[in-house]
């Protein structure tokens, strides 16, 4: 009942405002009349009674205003009034409004763009059913190093665990498989999975069926699930594709189902095939190649799952101490696992935009403050006419919120532009997440930011603007000059802006220097003029090693004969493109160490001429040659790190080593030592490596690497044609210049650094604008004093120094604060730094230099204006 009444009266006061006002007028008039009548009755003259009554009532307008403020609908009512008023005032000051809106739109737009990405990548959950119950498992050794899990261990976990509804696994990386049987050979990406991966993810094929436990146990099934895209391109989306046979690397597989459109899990692949008994993956506990994915039971928390898998690991360690001592399973939230590479980057960018927005807000707050001074008499007038302070505050705040919300609207446009340009480049493509869009969450964010920054920029100027004494203001509005507290506030804003800018510039500086270091990093080989690609032959077409030798040998010869090619070679895994595969190696005269005690080196096998082609220096001994074939003694070339780790300072050439997991179960003769190179990434230190002879170790899929004097990309079609002529079922797949491969390793980081530098530049510009504004205002205020100084003989040099000095008194403290803040900030981004320490002197010095330059630029205009003050005018005014 009461609520109902309230609603009614709210509507009444909203829509029948005039009626209510008239009513109130009448009521007050009648009050006056009654009071006058009383006083007349008490013996006063009518005149006197009227005056007394009026005095007693006080200001009619004040009473009315007070009553209005009490009305429920009043807030809404005045809000619309304030809105109209704000729009009117802002329209009247087009210059001010435009500057403020543009400044804020940049800040809000940038934040919105970043927020959308963060929201999509870091906050939104992944597109699987109940994703927070999904975890991934990696191996730990003695509590550190996260790596792949052994299949045999995995099967034990799957058998023993009580915490998981399903525990599945998939390959640590994908394989290239050549599909034949169509018009032409096609290279596919494939990955091994356990039968229950899709059951774990709760995703079903749209056509056909998923894998079954029997498929895995029978081990002769050779069944695959295919990607929606492959189904469309290769099978025209025909349901009949299910049940048909495809040939991958010469093996026949039956298609049992098609995954839904857009489905991907961690890797972009065309084909999922089963790890079954016949697949040579992880036959022993000390060979590791799987990523474990589990769905926890609803009642289980990740902590409990960790405890349980820890217990299982301990049991395995006890049962198989040889292989499992110190080994455990490391569980992480799937979502965290997916965003691990980008979250720091994104957080950095988000923090940066927030700071830029803060600087923009400080600028606009400074503008509002300065304008508040000019509006002092208007405010005083309204106060005198009965507006309470809270009423005035509300009005001023409405104005600044209108300002920021307009900027917010524009900011959405800015966000859209920024996002399309900038975020396309961000390294989020490989995460398996949808591309972010400006959506309702982002719009809500923009609105929130707009209103918050409106209040942020508005509140202090509004408090200042309304804390005035009407009488003094009305009397002296014309002569009123900026009060000391206002000036202090403006200075505080500038100090804050300078501090934030400095921190940003130092941060960008360290990252730019890291990028430079990373670009100049010594790879250990020469990537210029190198073309890389993969060549895979069908196992059943080249059944014997001799046949494979023949194919690859003649291929190399023919490639070398191509115009523009200076040399060519083959390697089992291309550096920086195909990562991983490290095997234990030890001197043959020593007993085999346990896996934990082993020294691991990246295992590769190469054709003769590989080191010469890539430019890896041969330090001692000889290169692998044509004579190191299947029938001669197995040979191996060690990298310097590997040689030193195995044989110390003594000469390894002529010694023998054993390699676990190698297809050749004999000792290898060390024939040479080569330089170390970065095989697995730019930021990683060079890896220990060992190179065997491809003709002795074999393999049907090799990386081809070609050195040319010209542009490597122009060779692609020639090599392509050559390979196809040799065998239509063989492909020159995924060609790329080595330079672009190296570049790919920096691309994501470069975008982050570019974006950050861009934001820092915006921050600097905004800071310069803020500084300029305060100094220009300052010169205006002191025009008289400056004129007199000029009149009594001050030189323009002195004046310029004075204004510059004024600038520096604000910049100085900001500079100091910024430098102090920069250090902890760079510590936070330490994982992104490369080759430099957080306390990087050049970055700090550059930042100081830049801010000095900006200060001088920002101060020079006001300083010039100071020297042009017209002495005669000033003196005439005096």
């Amino acid at each position: 009942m009461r609520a109902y009444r309230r609603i009614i009266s709210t509507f009444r006061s909203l829509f029948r405002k005039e009626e209510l006002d008239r009513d109130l007028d009448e009521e007050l008039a009648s009050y006056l009349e009654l009071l006058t009548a009383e006083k007349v009755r008490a013996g006063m003259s009518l005149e006197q009674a009227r005056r007394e009554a009026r005095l007693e009532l006080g200001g009619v307008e004040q009473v009315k205003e007070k009553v209005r403020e009490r009305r429920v609908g009043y807030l809404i009512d005045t809000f619309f009034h304030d809105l109209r008023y704000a729009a009117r005032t802002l329209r009247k000051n087009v210059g001010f409004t435009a500057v403020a809106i543009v400044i804020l739109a940049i800040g809000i737009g940038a934040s919105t763009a970043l927020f959308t990405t963060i929201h999509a990548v870091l906050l939104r959950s992944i597109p699987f059913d109940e994703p927070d119950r999904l975890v991934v498992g990696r191996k730990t050794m003695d509590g550190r190093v996260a790596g792949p899990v052994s299949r045999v261990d995995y099967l034990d976990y799957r058998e023993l665990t009580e915490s998981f509804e399903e525990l599945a696994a998939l390959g640590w990386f994908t394989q290239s498989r050549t599909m034949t049987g169509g018009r032409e050979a096609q290279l596919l990406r494939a990955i091994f999975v356990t039968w229950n991966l899709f059951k774990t993810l709760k995703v079903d094929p749209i056509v056909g069926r998923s894998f079954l436990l029997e498929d895995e146990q029978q081990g002769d099934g050779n069944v695959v699930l295919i990607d929606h895209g492959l189904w469309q391109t290769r099978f025209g989306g025909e349901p009949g594709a299910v049940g048909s046979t495809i040939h991958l690397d010469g093996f026949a597989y039956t298609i049992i189902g098609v995954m839904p459109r857009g489905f991907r899990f961690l890797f972009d692949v065309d084909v999922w095939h089963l790890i079954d008994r016949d697949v040579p993956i992880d036959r022993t506990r000390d060979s590791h190649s799987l990523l474990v994915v589990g769905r926890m039971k609803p009642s289980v928390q990740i902590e409990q799952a960790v405890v349980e898998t820890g217990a299982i690991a301990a049991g395995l360690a006890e049962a198989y101490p040889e292989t499992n001592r110190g080994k455990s399973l490391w569980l992480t939230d799937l979502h965290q696992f997916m965003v691990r590479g980008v979250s720091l980057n994104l957080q950095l960018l988000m923090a940066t935009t927030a700071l830029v927005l803060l600087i923009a807000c400080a600028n606009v707050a400074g503008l509002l403050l300065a304008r508040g001074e000019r509006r002092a008499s208007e405010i005083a007038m309204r106060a005198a006419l009965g507006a309470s302070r809270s009423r005035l505050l509300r009005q001023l705040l409405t104005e600044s919120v209108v300002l920021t919300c307009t900027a917010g609207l524009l900011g959405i446009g800015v966000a859209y532009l920024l996002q399309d340009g900038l975020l396309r480049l961000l390294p989020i493509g490989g995460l398996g997440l949808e591309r972010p869009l400006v959506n309702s969450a982002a719009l809500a964010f923009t609105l929130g930011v707009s209103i918050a920054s409106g209040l942020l920029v508005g509140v202090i100027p509004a408090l200042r603007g309304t804390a005035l004494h009407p009488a003094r203001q009305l009397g002296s509005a014309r002569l009123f000059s900026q009060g000391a507290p206002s000036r202090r506030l403006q200075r505080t804003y500038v100090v804050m802006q300078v501090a934030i800018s400095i921190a940003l510039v130092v941060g960008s500086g360290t990252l730019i220097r890291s990028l430079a270091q990373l670009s100049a990093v010594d790879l250990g080989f020469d990537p210029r003029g190198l073309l890389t690609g993969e060549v895979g032959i069908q196992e059943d077409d080249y059944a014997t090693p001799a046949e494979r030798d023949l194919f690859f040998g003649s291929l190399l010869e023919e490639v070398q004969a191509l115009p523009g090619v200076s040399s060519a070679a083959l390697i089992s895994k291309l550096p920086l493109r195909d990562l991983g595969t490290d095997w234990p190696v030890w001197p043959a005269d020593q007993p085999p160490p346990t896996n934990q005690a082993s020294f691991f080196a990246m295992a590769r096998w190469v054709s003769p001429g590989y080191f010469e082609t890539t430019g890896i220096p041969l330090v001692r001994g000889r290169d692998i040659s044509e004579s190191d074939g299947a029938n001669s003694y197995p040979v191996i070339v060690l990298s310097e790190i590997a040689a030193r780790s195995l044989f110390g300072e003594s000469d390894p050439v002529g010694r023998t080593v054993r390699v676990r997991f190698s297809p050749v179960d004999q000792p290898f003769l060390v024939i040479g030592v080569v330089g170390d190179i970065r095989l697995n990434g730019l930021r990683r230190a060079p890896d220990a490596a060992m190179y065997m002879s491809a003709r002795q170790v074999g393999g049907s899929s090799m990386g081809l690497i070609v050195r040319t004097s010209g542009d490597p990309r122009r060779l692609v079609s020639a090599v392509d044609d050559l390979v196809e002529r040799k065998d239509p079922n063989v492909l020159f797949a995924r060609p790329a210049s080595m330079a672009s491969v190296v570049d790919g390793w920096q691309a994501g980081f470069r975008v982050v650094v570019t974006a950050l530098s861009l934001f820092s530049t915006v921050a600097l510009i905004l800071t310069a604008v803020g500084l300029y504004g305060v100094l220009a205002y300052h010169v205006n205020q002191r025009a008289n004093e400056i004129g007199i100084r000029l009149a009594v003989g001050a030189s323009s040099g002195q004046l310029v120094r004075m204004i510059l000095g004024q600038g520096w008194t604000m910049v100085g403290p900001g500079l100091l604060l910024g430098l102090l803040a920069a250090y902890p900030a760079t510590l936070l981004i330490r994982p992104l730094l490369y080759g430099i320490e957080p306390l990087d002197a050049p970055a700090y010095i550059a930042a100081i230099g830049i801010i000095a330059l900006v200060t001088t630029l920002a101060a020079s205009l006001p300083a010039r204006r100071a020297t042009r003050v017209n002495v005669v005018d000033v003196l005439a005014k005096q």
Partner: protein
Amino acid sequence: MADGKTDLLRGTLDMLILKTLSLQPLHGLGVSQRIEQVTGGVFQVKPGSLFPALHRLEQEGWIEGSWGESANNRRAKYYTLTAAGRRRLGEEKRNWAQVVLAITKVLEAT
């Protein structure tokens, strides 16, 4: 400062107005005069606080205003206590009694 005082008085003022109107409907001036008269001039309710209070009480639905004729044939807005207002007055009286009791206890404590 001044705000604090009005806030403290406002609750009391509400109660005094409700009590005054519980005896008979009155117009604004009547209410303020009755309060002044009954309290022997201790409380002087100025229009600046009287009218906002009356309008708020009306919005709460505790009193109702309607235009009528005053004793000497002038138009005036008369306020009447509603049923909800009567209940409200009862609550306020009880609260007040508790406050008075509590304060008295404090003052009489030895």
